[in-house]
């Protein structure tokens, strides 16, 4: 046995708060690791200087822990803090979104490193980092990121265990095991809570997660803009069809209409009416898909536009129909959004309403810059005088693209002045944006209303051909031309030049050129011809898609949908009761388990337990049992103090004697009596006040 001689008043011991004063290096290391992990999901949105600052300050703190350097004094700390916050404010420029808030959390953690001296500081960092993990879920919901995030939180809890038992040797493995057991034990209740906790509508409107531009199509189009996008294999959206997946050439996902040419840039001329951002894009449609319905899971774009096939109508409540057969989300897609559309029943029925263009619209769709591209204008005027049917003119233009040597390329030369002239008459090499712009220009110059539509075209099927994945390189631009009598009709100049692009996608269209994803080394799509990579990447996408649809997307309506299938048809309020019941049950079970553990430590002999209780009772009332005393003696002494309980006390002692020293004639009734004597004795003792000490 060791003996420890310790000065009780030694100031070096734990502080008055009960926390150890100096942080243990291991605890600090876990905290830093957790920070590194939890910052990772933010890396692409954080300013580089902030990441650098965090690394420098954390290293400083670590070196100080090792005793290599000293932590800075108050003045230097204040200076660093002021400088960092000034730079931060300058970067944010007053925009407020979760994005800027989360970078502020990161900044706060970074600055806090220099002040992390006590356990209290450790807890401050712990809380900020837990919330950072929460915020991370707003940005990234993929299964991989979710696991990474949870790992970071796990590290925090390991760090807490190390912090609270710094002197324990080899505690890390035990900490993992302890946490693992805790998580396993509570897993059922977590799952039940997840399913049954009522998904209330938002309590109040919250700021957008982010309002920074992301990779994706934008609301302007210059000749080169879409070929930039073609270098990215990021996912744009995924679609599940209730019926058959339409063929590749019919998959024109309309996003935006650009109807005004300013210099070289196509923009939205007809201003969209301003609409306040809604609370969230919930209500993405529930239940099994009908044959004519399809379900789009859009990745975050931070924009409002929703992509839809020709002739669709909105089914889910988070969509609004706009002019130009477009759809808009009620709130910018700051996180992944699911929405549902359906094909319109009968195209004939729609056509029966004679479409008309108002004079102002007519003017808008003929708008051109005052000058520029004279050769194109001249040719357009010439053709317009030769034929009067707009459709024929358009077809003749397409024919020219098809038969003359025009090329579809991701590497078009730059055409600085009169770009459309250069494209059509000299260079003859361009990407979809070039041709769509040029054709619209040409048609307008010929007096035919036309507009550019941007969106995506095609998409590849995911694992098992169950759904469609549309990626950024599927971005496309095409033309719609106004034909009086039939309305807007799609014409795609790219299809005339490179049918492969429309029939099977960009990869095949630029196969000869070898320019497909040439800058994106890490993308699995780049290696689409290697079967294993393709298979693995599709499996992973499938997993993520299911995860996003069923776990991430388990929200208000999907919960109600699930509940309506369960017996009992639970409403939100009843779900609240179920949740409360679940929590109560869990606590009760936990208490029972604790009690059961306690029980194991108690004497198994019920008489022994009764004697213990009896002695406790007497002790509480000032009669201390003495070691070696028989129950009789104790009863006698107690009777001296509480004569009114004399009979009961002696009866108890007699029964105890009978049990231990009797002839084995203790009956169950005796045992019951033994038990019942205790409350009776307590009552008797208390019946006359003054006896208690």
């Amino acid at each position, binding site marked *: *046995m*060791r003996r*420890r001689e*310790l*000065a*009780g*008043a030694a100031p070096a011991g*734990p502080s*008055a708060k*009960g926390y*150890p004063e100096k942080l243990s290096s291991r605890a600090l290391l876990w905290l830093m690791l957790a920070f590194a992990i939890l910052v990772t999901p933010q890396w692409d949105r954080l300013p580089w200087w902030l990441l650098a600052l965090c690394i420098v300050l954390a290293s400083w703190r670590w070196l100080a822990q090792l005793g290599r350097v000293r932590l800075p004094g108050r003045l230097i700390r204040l200076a660093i803090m002021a400088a960092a916050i000034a730079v931060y404010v300058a970067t944010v420029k007053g925009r407020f979104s979760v994005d800027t808030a989360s970078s502020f959390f990161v900044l706060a953690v970074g600055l806090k490193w220099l002040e992390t001296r006590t*356990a209290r500081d450790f*807890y401050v960092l712990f*809380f900020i980092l*837990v*919330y950072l*993990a*929460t915020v991370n*879920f*707003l940005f990234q*919901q993929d299964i991989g990121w*979710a696991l990474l995030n949870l790992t970071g*939180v796990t590290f925090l*809890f390991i760090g*807490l*265990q190390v912090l*609270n038992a710094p*002197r*324990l040797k080899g505690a890390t493995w035990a900490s993992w095991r*302890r*946490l693992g057991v*805790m*998580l396993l034990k*509570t897993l059922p*209740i*977590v799952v039940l*809570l997840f399913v049954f*906790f009522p*998904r*209330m509508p*938002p*309590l109040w409107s*919250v700021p957008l997660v982010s309002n920074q531009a992301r990779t994706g199509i934008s609301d302007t189009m210059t000749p080169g803009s879409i070929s930039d996008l073609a270098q990215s294999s990021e996912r744009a959206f995924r679609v599940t069809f209730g019926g058959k997946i339409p063929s590749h050439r019919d998959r024109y996902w309309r996003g935006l209409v650009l109807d005004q040419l300013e210099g070289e840039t196509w923009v939205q001329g007809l201003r969209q009416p301003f609409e306040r951002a809604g*609370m*969230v894009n919930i209500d993405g449609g529930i239940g099994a898909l009908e044959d004519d319905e399809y379900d789009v899971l859009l990745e975050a774009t931070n924009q409002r536009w929703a992509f839809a096939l020709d002739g669709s109508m909105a089914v889910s409540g988070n969509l609004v129909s706009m002019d130009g057969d477009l759809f808009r989300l009620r709130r910018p897609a700051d*996180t992944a959004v699911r929405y549902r559309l359906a094909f319109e029943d009968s195209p004939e029925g729609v056509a029966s309403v004679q479409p008309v263009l108002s004079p102002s619209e007519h003017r808008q769709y003929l708008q051109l810059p005052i000058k520029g591209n004279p050769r194109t204008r001249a040719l357009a005027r010439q053709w317009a005088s030769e034929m009067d049917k707009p459709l024929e003119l358009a077809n003749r233009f397409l024919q020219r693209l098809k038969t003359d040597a025009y090329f579809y390329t991701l590497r078009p030369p730059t055409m600085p002045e009169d770009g459309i002239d250069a494209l059509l008459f000299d260079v003859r090499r361009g990407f979809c944006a070039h041709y769509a712009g040029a054709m619209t220009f040409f048609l307008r110059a010929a007096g035919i209303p036309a507009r550019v539509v941007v969106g995506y075209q095609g998409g590849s099927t995911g694992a098992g051909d169950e759904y469609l994945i549309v990626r950024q390189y599927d971005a496309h631009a095409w033309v719609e031309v106004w034909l009086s009598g039939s309305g807007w009709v799609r014409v795609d100049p790219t299809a005339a030049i490179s049918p492969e692009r429309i029939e099977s996608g960009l990869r095949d269209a630029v196969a000869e050129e070898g320019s497909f994803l040439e800058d994106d080394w890490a993308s699995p799509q780049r290696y689409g011809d290697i079967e294993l990579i393709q298979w693995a990447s599709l499996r992973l996408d499938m997993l993520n898609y299911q995860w996003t649809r069923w*776990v*991430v*997307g*388990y929200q*208000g309506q999907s919960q109600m949908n699930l509940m309506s299938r369960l017996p009992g048809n639970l409403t939100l309020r009843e779900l609240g009761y179920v949740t409360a019941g679940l929590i109560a049950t869990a606590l009760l079970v*936990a208490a029972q*388990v*604790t*009690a059961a*553990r*306690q029980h194991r*430590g108690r004497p198994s002999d019920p008489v022994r337990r009764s004697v213990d209780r009896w002695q406790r009772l007497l002790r509480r009332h000032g009669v*201390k049992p*003495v070691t070696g005393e028989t129950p009789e003696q104790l009863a006698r002494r107690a009777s001296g103090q509480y004569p009114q309980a004399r009979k009961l006390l002696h009866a108890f002692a007699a029964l105890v004697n009978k049990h231990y020293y009797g002839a084995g004639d203790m009956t169950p009734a005796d045992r019951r009596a033994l038990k019942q004597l205790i409350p009776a004795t307590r009552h008797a003792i208390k019946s006359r006040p003054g006896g208690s000490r």
Partner: protein
Amino acid sequence: MTSGLKARWNRWVSQRIPRSDSQRFHQRNIFILPSGAGVVFTVLLVIMLITGINYQNSLIYLLTFLLGAVFVAAMHQTHRNLAGFELTLVQPGEGFAGDEIPFVLRGSSPRDDAIAIAFTLPASSGVARRTIDTLTFMEGDTDDLTVLVPAPRRGLQGIDRLRVETGFPFGLLKAWSWMRPEGQGLVYPRPITPPLTMTDIGEGDESAQLRAAFGHDHAEIRPWRAGDMIQRVLWKRYARTGEMVIAKWEGDQGSPHWLDFSAFPGAEAELRLSYLTAQVLERDTAGQVFGLRLPGQVIEPDSGELHLRRCLRALALFGIHQPGTADASHLPSAQSARAAV
């Protein structure tokens, strides 16, 4: 109002946790509440839930439920960490008034790990709260812990309450209980060397002063320390060397064999006891035979360890009501003997 509540609470706790030299912690005597960090953590959980609701983010719901479940599981863990832990008073301390007297306690955890158990003495009657130590008892471990208890007055000194607390594993909850040991330590009066019977501190030389004091030349001298009578300082020597020294008192007062309570006319009773204590100690060190006369109590002249203890004990408990039968077991020697069995 609050002090009234506090008193009630203390009474309730005292009733809940009876005085005992051996305490096993279990469901009935363990208290558990969220710590400060735990309160902040629950607030954070609420904020997380609101974030999840407002952004309709399922994964945030999931994280919130997960952390909430961990919090509840931590409640169980923290409680379990303390439950089953046993604490026994092995040896109540002894010492002189004004010192801190050591109590030795033995902790053991027969069935479970008891990790990072913090021991503190709560603040009581003018004595500030003090932290003793934080110890870990792995399953089956036994370890001793020395608690230094300030003993301001002579007599019996117990530990009113020893707080036993743990926040392990996460520090988000604290489970605590108290040990209220029955055994009390003995506090002897603070030894104060009695002053000279100041008759003639003449203007003579130092040896004359010493002779006057002790009747011989062989007085030992020792440095002055707090509590010594200022008259006994050898001022001549101080003037010469700057050292404050006093003659070590070896003379007799009254009978050579008897130390008598009544030998210090004019002094207060407590002071007399302090004088007597100093005398007892000095006699014992010198190996002399002496007896002790206290009002109502006479200890016949003797010498040796046992005699010393009897005398010191008589001085410590002089005029103090002793609880009836139990006191014999409070003799430190008896206690150690019992513990050693």
